[in-house]
């Protein structure tokens, strides 16, 4: 490694965007010949340059803060604080009354009733085999179908038969969870499964298929993620 690397360590970006003047460029290129670190740094930045080229000049220019640029409406801050405080208070009151749990159960029932009443189903746009996240015997496949109200999700979940006679009658509750691309999770359906059982579930979400980041099967008991799949892979 060259001893004067410290002097040039921050020149890589200026070099790759051709912003160095000719004297600096010659100095830097001479340094590059015997500095592995700087050559690697330049290689790291090359893909970023390719991506910058995707954006039109005038779009990029409009991201610069114009001199004297205005910002949000000064009154907006107080409005947002007031609304957020109100919402947080309401949330706490719901939680106190156990209202959240009751509302969630009601929502599940309603979602289930609504989605199962919509027939017939066209061919699914996408089939996702959920992958095991931990060591579980379960396997599940979901079919996603675009519909006017969001995405229909049909799941088949298999629990293979067990040789252990004592395990045969045991069943555990599971929950199907969808996470949107902006990070919000919602529980779609719950069911019980044990050795030798196959569950068919019809559920749905208001999200568009492209807004679904992941679909998971979790254990109700401890919320552990057991199976996971990401559409669009």
């Amino acid at each position, binding site marked *: 490694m060259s001893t004067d690397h410290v002097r040039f360590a921050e020149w890589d970006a200026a070099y790759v965007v051709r912003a160095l003047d000719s004297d600096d460029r010659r100095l830097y290129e001479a340094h590059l010949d015997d500095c592995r670190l700087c050559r690697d740094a330049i290689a790291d930045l090359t893909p970023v340059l390719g991506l910058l080229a995707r954006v*039109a000049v005038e779009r990029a220019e409009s991201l610069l803060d114009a001199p004297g640029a205005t910002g*949000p409406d000064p009154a907006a801050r107080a409005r947002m604080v007031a609304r957020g405080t109100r919402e947080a208070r309401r949330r706490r009151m719901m939680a106190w009354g156990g209202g959240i749990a009751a509302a969630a159960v009601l929502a599940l029932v309603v979602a289930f009733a609504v989605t199962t009443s919509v027939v017939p189903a066209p061919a699914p746009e996408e089939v996702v085999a959920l992958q095991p996240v931990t060591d579980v015997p379960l396997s599940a496949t979901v079919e996603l179908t675009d519909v006017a109200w969001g995405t229909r999700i049909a799941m088949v979940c298999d629990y293979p038969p067990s040789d252990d006679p004592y395990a045969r009658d045991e069943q555990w509750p599971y929950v199907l969870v969808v996470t949107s691309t902006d990070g919000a999770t919602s529980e779609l359906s719950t069911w019980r499964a044990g050795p030798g059982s196959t569950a068919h579930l019809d559920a749905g979400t208001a999200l568009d298929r492209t807004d679904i980041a992941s679909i998971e099967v979790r254990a109700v008991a401890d919320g552990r993620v057991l199976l996971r799949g990401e559409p669009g892979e």
Partner: protein
Amino acid sequence: MPHDSVESRDSTAGRDAERLAALYDAHAAPVWRYVVHLTGDRAGADDIVQETLLRAWRTPRILEQDPSTTRSWMFTVARHLVIDEARSARRRREIGVAEVPERVTPDATDALFEAILVEEALAALTTEHRTVVVRAYYRGQSVAEMADELDIPPGTVKSRLHYGLRALRLTLQEKGVTR
């Protein structure tokens, strides 16, 4: 209701207000600028900013992330809100008109989406970093020109470009656009 419980509720509300104000101060202006960049509509941007910040406020998991990740999440949420609003506005205009599926070739869609993500990553940079990256790459300004116009030493320009492009790369990696 006993007096002490009222008081504790008031102080909780006070804490909420403080945290909301801090959230607003940290993110409202950049999110607002990004929304105006997307829509050109200054008045409408305030509502989108409010909705975006409140969604973050309702999602503790997001608030626990480091600020740049939170910011990048907010830009994505704001973009979704802008698109949703544009769609519902179009639907209102097109009532009674048969739905015509938009056919875009997958390649064009990918390129467009990538451009949006790069714009979003540029918007997520600090003002100092964004200024030199845009001036150097898109305007083709040299280190000397930028130093002169921004009234900072040439070494600072180089340093800002260095850290700016690295921050950009990190954001794009987080968004899965590049390795």
